[in-house]
C-alpha cells in the first residue's frame, strides 16, 4: 500500500498521474495528455495522445492543427487509464467543451478544474459541483476585489452606448475563444438582433461554435463591408486588435473591452479602453471561495492566478491548501 495520493504529483510542467504516466494540461509535449479545455495555456499541440471532450478536440484541431491520437470523452463519461486510474469529464462552465477532470484511483478522488465559472453561459453547460478528496482549482481572479457584475448590466451598458452614438460603432475586444461567442450570444439574449461584425481572426471559431449548436445570429466579416455599413453596429475583435491599425477601417469606434480585469480602472486605462465591460469566463472571488466550500475537499491545491490570496483565505477558514508552482500558465485575456 503506497502513501495516500502519492499517485498524483504536481510537477512544474503539469499534473502527473503516475501509474498511468499521463499529464493533465501539460505545458510541454508528452506521450499522453488529458486536456481540460482549448485555451492556449492548457492545450498545446504535439502530444502523442490527447484525451479531451469532442468540442475541445475540435477547437484544438482548429487552433493547433493537432488531431493525431485524439481520444474523445463526453461529459459524464469515464475512461479507464493504465495503472487503474479512472478519468471522468464533468462540465466546468468556462468555454465550449471545457471540463473538470475527476481522477479516481484506489478509492481516492481528485478533481482538476482547469478554468471554470459559476455563472450561466449560453455557450456551454454549467459547472457541476462534484465531491472529491483533493480539489485542484484555478485562481485567476483570486482577489477579494473581483466581483463580476451580472452580465445583463454589462450588456445594457454596451447597448446604451451603441444607441447614444448612431454614427459610430462600438468595437468590443474579446478573447477569440469563448469570450467573443459568449458576448455575441448574450447580446442576442438581450434582444440585439442586428448583424454583428467580426474581425477575420474570429470567424472560424464562431463557425465552430455554430457547428456545435450555439446560435450567434447574423455575423458579418468587417473586411466585406464599408465604413458606412458599420455605423451604429457592434464589431467584435481580439483584444490585440483594439488599438491596432486594423481599427482605422471602422467608423470612429468607441473602444470597449470585455474582461474581468476591467474591474480595475488602471487596467482599462492601460488598454486605452473607453467602455470597460466587466465580463469574465472565470469564477470571481465569491465564487472561488463558495466553490471550495461546496466541494468541501480535504485539501485544495491552487494552480494559477492570484494563488497567495486564495491560499490565505483557506488558512483563515481552516481549510488545508497549497499553491502549486506550475509554469507556463498565463493570465488569459479574460
Amino acid at each position: 500500500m503506497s502513501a495516500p495520493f502519492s499517485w498524483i504529483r504536481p510537477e512544474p510542467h503539469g499534473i502527473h498521474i503516475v501509474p498511468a504516466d499521463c499529464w493533465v494540461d501539460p505545458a510541454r509535449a508528452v506521450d499522453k495528455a488529458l486536456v481540460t479545455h482549448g485555451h492556449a495555456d492548457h492545450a498545446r499541440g504535439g502530444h502523442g495522445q490527447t484525451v479531451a471532450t469532442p468540442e475541445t478536440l475540435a477547437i484544438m484541431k482548429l487552433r493547433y492543427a493537432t488531431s493525431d491520437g485524439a481520444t474523445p470523452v463526453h461529459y459524464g463519461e469515464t475512461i479507464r487509464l493504465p495503472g487503474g486510474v479512472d478519468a471522468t469529464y464533468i462540465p466546468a462552465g468556462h468555454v465550449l467543451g471545457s471540463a473538470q477532470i475527476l481522477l479516481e484511483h484506489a478509492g481516492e478522488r481528485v478533481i482538476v478544474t482547469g478554468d471554470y465559472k459559476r455563472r450561466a453561459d449560453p455557450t456551454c453547460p454549467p459547472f457541476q459541483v462534484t465531491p472529491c478528496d483533493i480539489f485542484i482549482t484555478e485562481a485567476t481572479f483570486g482577489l477579494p476585489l473581483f466581483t463580476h457584475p451580472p452580465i445583463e448590466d454589462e450588456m445594457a451598458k454596451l447597448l446604451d452606448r451603441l444607441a447614444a452614438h448612431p454614427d459610430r460603432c462600438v468595437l468590443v475586444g474579446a478573447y477569440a475563444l469563448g469570450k467573443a461567442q459568449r458576448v455575441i450570444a448574450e447580446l442576442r439574449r438581450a434582444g440585439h438582433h442586428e448583424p454583428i461584425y467580426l474581425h477575420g481572426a474570429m470567424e472560424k471559431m464562431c463557425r465552430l461554435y455554430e457547428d456545435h449548436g450555439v446560435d450567434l445570429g447574423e455575423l458579418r466579416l468587417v473586411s466585406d463591408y464599408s465604413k458606412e455599413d458599420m455605423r451604429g453596429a457592434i464589431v467584435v475583435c481580439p483584444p490585440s486588435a483594439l488599438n491596432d491599425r486594423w481599427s482605422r477601417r471602422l467608423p470612429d469606434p468607441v473602444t470597449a473591452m470585455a474582461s474581468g480585469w476591467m474591474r480595475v480602472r488602471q487596467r482599462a486605462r492601460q488598454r486605452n479602453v473607453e467602455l470597460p465591460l466587466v465580463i469574465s469566463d472565470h469564477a470571481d472571488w465569491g465564487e472561488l471561495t463558495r466553490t471550495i466550500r461546496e466541494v468541501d475537499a480535504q485539501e485544495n491545491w491552487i494552480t494559477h492566478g492570484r494563488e497567495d490570496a486564495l491560499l490565505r483565505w483557506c488558512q483563515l477558514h481552516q481549510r488545508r491548501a497549497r499553491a502549486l508552482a506550475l509554469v507556463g500558465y498565463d493570465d488569459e485575456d479574460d
Partner: protein
Amino acid sequence: MEEFAALIDALVYTRSRNEKLRLIAEYLRATPDPDRGWALAALSDGLDFPAVKSSAIRNLMKDRIDPVLWTLSRDFVGDTAETASLLWPAPDDPPSPPTVGETVDLLSAMTRKSVQTELPRLLDRLDASGRYALLKLATGAMRIGISSRLAKTAFAQAFGVSVEEVEEYWHGLQPPYAELFAWAAGGEAPPDIENLPTFRPFMLAHPLEDTVVDLADYAAEWKWDGIRVQLVRAGDETRIYSRSGDDISATFPELLDVLPFPAVLDGELLVRGSVQGGEEGGAASFNALQQRLGRKTVSKKMLAEYPAFVRLYDVLLTEGEDLRELPWTGRRARLEALMKRLPQSHFDISQLVQPRDFDHLAEIRGGSRDEAIEGLMLKRRDSPYIAGRRVGYWYKWKRDPLLVDCVLMYAQRGSGKRSSFYSDYTFGCWDGDPDAGADLLPVGKAYSGFTDEELKKLDRHVRQNTVNRFGPVRETDKSLVFEVAFDSVHESKRHKSGLAMRFPRIHRIRWDKPPHEADRIDALRALIRD
C-alpha cells in the same frame, strides 16, 4: 455627488484632450455653486482634509478585511482609494448620495478620531463609483490624467474667458472660487488681487539639445543648483513660492522681511558657501540647501549654519508696475537698478556669462561640472515673461550627466498606469572585487529612462528572474546591468552604501554586459564633488 462621480469615471476612460475639456466644461456649466467650485478645486490643485489620509483609509479597511488580503489587493490595484472603493462591503440600504458641498463639509469636520466612524457613514451612502470619487477627492490626489492647467483651460472654455486671466486670479482665491465663477459665469467684476501676495506662474525653459543659438540674440547666465523661487511682496506681506506654486515661506523666515517694496521677483534660492563657482560663486552645494528644505519650523542653529539667500534672475512686477511685457533686456536693466535697494545680506544678482562665441560657450559649459554648477541658461534678449514653456525663448543647457554601470537588485510594481508592471528599479554597485566574493550594495532607484517596449522586456526579466518576493517587491537574481545616468552623487546616511544619486535614470539597458563587470562603489564615490 453622482454627477461628480460620473464625471470622474468618464474622465478616467477618455483619451482625447478635447473630449476631457468638453466633459469638464459641461459639468461646470450644468452644476450649481458651490459644488462646481469644489469639483474644480479637486481636479486642479486638489483639496486637503488633514484627517483623511491614505493611512486612515487603510485603517478603516483593516477593520473590515484581513490585512493580508487587503495588502495583496492594494498591491494588485496600485491605488489605495480605488482598492477601498472596490472592497467596501455593499450596504443594505439604497444609496443616498450627498452633494459635493455637503461631502466637503463633512470631510472638513472630521478629526483623526471621528474619521473612523464618519467616513464609513459617508461611504455607505454611495455606490462603487461614488466611493471612488469620494476617496479620490478626500485624499487630495485624483491622478486621473487631469493637470491643473487642463482643469483651468476647461473652466476658461466653459465660460468663454482667457486661461491666462484665470491663472492670474487663481492663486489669490480659495476654493470653491465663488468670485471666479461670479466673474466668468455671472458677468461680475474680476477678483481683485492687486494687494494680495499671490503666485504668478513661472516662465520655464526648454532643453537646448542640438540647437545652436546666435549669441547676438541670446544672453547666457549660469543655471545655479538651488531651487527656483518666486518672492512676492504685496500689502505688507512677503511670500516665497516654489516652482510648483507651493507657499514655502515658513521654511525660510529670514527672507520674509528683507524685501522693502512691493514686487514679484524670480530667482534661485541658495545657501551661502563656496562650492558652486568657488569663493566667487558664493553658494553652497545643493546638498547643503537640502538640509533646509521641507521644514515647517527652523532652529536658530539651522539659520546660522545654512544661511539662505536669493540670487535674482528676473523681475515681473514692481511697485504696481507690470514688467512682464518688456523684453528681457528691459527687465534686466530694471532688475540691476533695483539691486541698489535690496540688502546684500539676502540678495545678489545672477551674473551674466560673457562668451566670445558659441564654441566658447560650449567650452564654459564643459567646465560647469568642475564649478559644481548645474549648467547654463540661454535667454532670448527680446523675450517677454510668459507663463510656462514657449519654444525659442529660454533654453536650459545642463552639464552632461555622469554614467555608471549598476546591477539590478530589486524591482517594485509601479503605480497608476504602471501598476501591473515592475517599473521601479533599485540597483547597486559592488563593494569590492565581485570575483573575490564582494557584495552588491544598493546605490539608487530609477523609474524612467526606458521606452514602453523596454519596460515590457524589463518586466518580463523581473518575473522570470525572481529569487525572492516581499509584497510588491521582487528581488532578482542580479543578472542585469543598467548604465545609469545621474546628475551628481553625494554622501548620504540614508543608504547602506553611504551614497545618494541625484536624478538617476536608466541610460541604457546592458543586456549584453555580465554583472561582474559593473562598477564598484569606490568608482562612484570618486565622483563626489561636495
